[in-house]
């Protein structure tokens, strides 16, 4: 599977985990989306560093874009392939879901 396909599947799987498996339903709360909004801004910044400098380089065959590392366009956003947004969304959501789920299980609730 290409990076594009896995990124889409991961994002959907994370939402499924939140809504139906763990039932944390963070994606229905304003708090989580506000947190994600902050994080995605910093993701663009830090990921731009990783990809713009070529610390991480992508195979044009695995992403929507081509060989060119541009600021915006050709399947890239702030140098990073757009697929990274799916990766980041899934990772951030999964981490929050597990954290909240563990808290509810132990009766800690908020921390």
């Amino acid at each position, binding site marked *: 599977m290409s990076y594009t396909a896995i990124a889409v599947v991961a994002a959907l799987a994370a939402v499924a985990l939140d809504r139906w498996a763990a039932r944390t339903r963070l994606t229905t709360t304003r*708090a989580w989306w506000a947190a994600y909004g902050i994080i995605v801004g910093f993701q663009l910044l830090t990921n731009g560093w990783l990809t713009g400098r070529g610390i991480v380089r992508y195979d044009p065959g695995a992403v929507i874009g081509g060989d060119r590392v541009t600021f915006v366009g050709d399947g890239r956003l702030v140098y990073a392939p757009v697929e990274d947004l799916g990766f980041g969304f899934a990772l951030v959501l999964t*981490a929050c879901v597990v954290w909240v789920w563990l*808290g509810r299980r132990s009766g*800690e609730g908020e921390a």
Partner: protein
Amino acid sequence: MSLRHWSYVAMLVFCMAGTLPLVPVFRLHVLRRPGRLLMTVVAAGSPFLLWDLYATRAGHWRFDPAQTLPWRVLGVPLEEVAFFVVIPLVSVLTYESVRAVGRRGRAAAPAPRAAERRKVR
């Protein structure tokens, strides 16, 4: 080792430097739950690390040896493994900070009327 080798480390340090101060600022209890935090990092980070190992092996992406430290774990830079610790951590800290701000706002605002309460929650 040149300064360039620390390029990836610099990004991780930036992430931690930006979020760790949230703990004292919002009086978060996140770090007082080391077990819960560790389980979160392991449970959430592991599947993504596996994906990363697969994708690196499949050639979806690769890392510049000139901008990473020389140590490799199962074919990926040590920094890449640390990434899957740092990102879950900053995610939880950011989420809990937003919730702390929400709590503070509710505490400061006058109690909403019963009819409004459902909307606020």
